[in-house]
């Protein structure tokens, strides 16, 4: 979200008259801030738990302070190191592949001139976005099962002699997650790129045609530069979300055999914090995730500021 220009207008001074005039706005603001404090800011005090040996009975103030012990435990835990790797790897793979697919789909769909073909394809492309991850993983499970369509095709074409149990081998897991992510969101993510392409001045294409440019050249020299600002701003917004990209699908598709590649930070937090009741350890892992996410956003924002006009803040 780029910063919008603030307009030059006479500044309204705070005065008793003005406050009375804005009574309604102030009252609403008061309730909104109260709500925000309770549901968004108050939980931040819970970060203290990461530095304590938190016991629910003793509360936040009575629990023993242990400094960085919980973090030390985390980083000495091989499982957590793997968890960080998994979260980061899947987040990055998803970010890169979904961006490429969305751009590719938008550009190719834009090449279709007949509306009666284009519209239905677009409508179909949104469909998976509206399905829950439960439905998507269920469908995926049916398709990839030993009697599912994927194994059937592979067997019939002679690429394999025996059905593959895709969910039992760690080497397939990240690819399955990436595929699911792309299957679900490509059409949806392409909406913004399609809008950006529509905003490109059509006379540029006409001019290029006269110059003898073919369609590929037009895409390369007109469409791609045209969607570059949108591309950058979305990339910026998504970089901060890289670590957030991993929960539902990994949780739903993961099983004992692929645990070493399927567990993400959020799953780790859930496992330690909620199931094992070690609130402090869970919070420490969550705090680590938040800190890294914020760091990513700041870095991405700095890079963007340096190399282009786009930025978040």
């Amino acid at each position, binding site marked *: 979200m780029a910063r*919008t220009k603030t*307009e030059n207008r006479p500044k309204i001074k705070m005065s008793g008259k003005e406050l009375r005039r*804005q009574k*309604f*706005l102030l009252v*609403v*603001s008061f309730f*909104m801030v109260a*709500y*925000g404090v*309770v549901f*968004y*800011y*108050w939980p931040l*005090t*819970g*970060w203290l738990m990461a530095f304590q040996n938190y016991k629910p009975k003793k509360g936040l103030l009575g629990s023993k302070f242990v400094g960085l012990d919980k973090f030390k435990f985390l980083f000495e835990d091989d499982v957590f190191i793997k968890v960080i790797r998994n979260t980061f790897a899947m987040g990055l793979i998803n970010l890169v592949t979904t961006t490429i697919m969305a751009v590719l789909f938008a550009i190719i*769909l834009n090449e279709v001139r007949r509306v009666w073909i284009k519209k239905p*394809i*677009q*409508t*179909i*492309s949104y*469909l998976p976005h*509206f*399905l*829950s991850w*439960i*439905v998507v*993983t269920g469908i995926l499970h*049916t*398709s990839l099962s030993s009697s599912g369509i994927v194994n059937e095709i592979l067997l019939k074409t002679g690429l394999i002699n025996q059905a593959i*149990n895709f969910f*039992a081998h760690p080497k397939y897991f990240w690819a399955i997650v990436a595929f699911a992510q792309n*299957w679900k969101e490509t*059409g949806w993510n392409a909406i*913004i790129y399609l*809008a950006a392409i529509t905003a490109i001045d059509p006379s*540029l294409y006409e001019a290029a045609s*006269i*110059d003898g440019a*073919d369609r*590929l050249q037009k895409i390369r020299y007109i469409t791609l530069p045209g969607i570059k600002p949108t591309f950058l*701003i979305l990339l910026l917004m998504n970089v901060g979300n890289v670590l957030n990209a991993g929960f*539902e699908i990994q949780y*739903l598709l993961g099983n*004992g*055999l692929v645990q070493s590649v399927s567990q993400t930070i*959020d799953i780790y*937090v*859930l496992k330690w*914090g*909620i199931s094992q009741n070690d*609130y402090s350890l869970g*919070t420490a892992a*969550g*705090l680590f995730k*938040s800190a890294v*996410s*914020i760091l990513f956003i700041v870095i991405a924002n700095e890079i963007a500021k340096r190399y282009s006009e786009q930025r978040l803040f």
Partner: protein
Amino acid sequence: MIRLTDSRLERGNTIMNETVNKEYKVRKPISDKVFSVIVVVFLAAFVIITLYPVINTVALSFNDGIDAVRGGIHLWPRKFSMKNYKTVMEMQNIWTGAKITVGRTVIATLTSLFANALLAFVVSRKRFLFKSQLSLFWVITMYVNGGMIPVFLLYKNLGLTGTFHVYWIPGMISAFNMLVMRTYMEGIPESLEESAQLDGAGYWTIFKDIISPLCKPMYATVALFIAVWQWNSWFDAMLYNRMKTEYTTLQYELMKLLSSVMQQSGSAENAKNGAATITPITIRAATTIVTMLPIVCLYPFLQRYFITGLTIGGVKE
């Protein structure tokens, strides 16, 4: 290159352009024909990959359960049967889940839409003294949050866990939706507000009678976002209401049906002798169709709204 042709275009009149275009059509480069083939193949593959699993699920849901174990059902049921849907309809927890899901979707959409709209209205008033401070207060929440454990403990302390209210109270205001609405409201001419104020209208009247009617398309968009989110949620039901079967949701019930199967595929031993204990694939398919049907039927008619919503939220803001 582009600048040069621009000037050429300016020189030429419309008739000339038409002849040029015609000429161009005749000698289309071969690369364009190859490209057309690529476009067709790509889009055909895209449509097939998107639709096949969904149609396959529909076909399975209408197929006889024992017959389906043989495999080989693709786009059409082999042995037609309505029994799966009958079985699903007889499951008591599916009905409870449906009731709660519909309830939370309706209540949360209405309350959340109202709260976000009101906040966006306040924040978008140019005269408002704390406009930027209030904005910042909410933007921060998009980037910094307490995380799963502190939030869980908060809901527990507030007595929200184990109740229906945990579905609609905590997420009522979302900074993202609020910002989308704010951007839209800022585009409405200020003169409307000023003239209403001259007529003695207060801010509530302005919000209710002047701004809101103009924001209907945006309200529809945000309502759709909230409704889809609510309909598809399952994690909150699992985390906060696991023990309260009376507050289960449709998606959570489906998850329970599916997860037993997913755990099984993880171990070869179970896969061999499993089939008997797990829910038949056809019942799972029928439940899946039941949970997704309302949204799948609805979304094609709301396309116009979510496209404008996304474009305003993502590009302009």
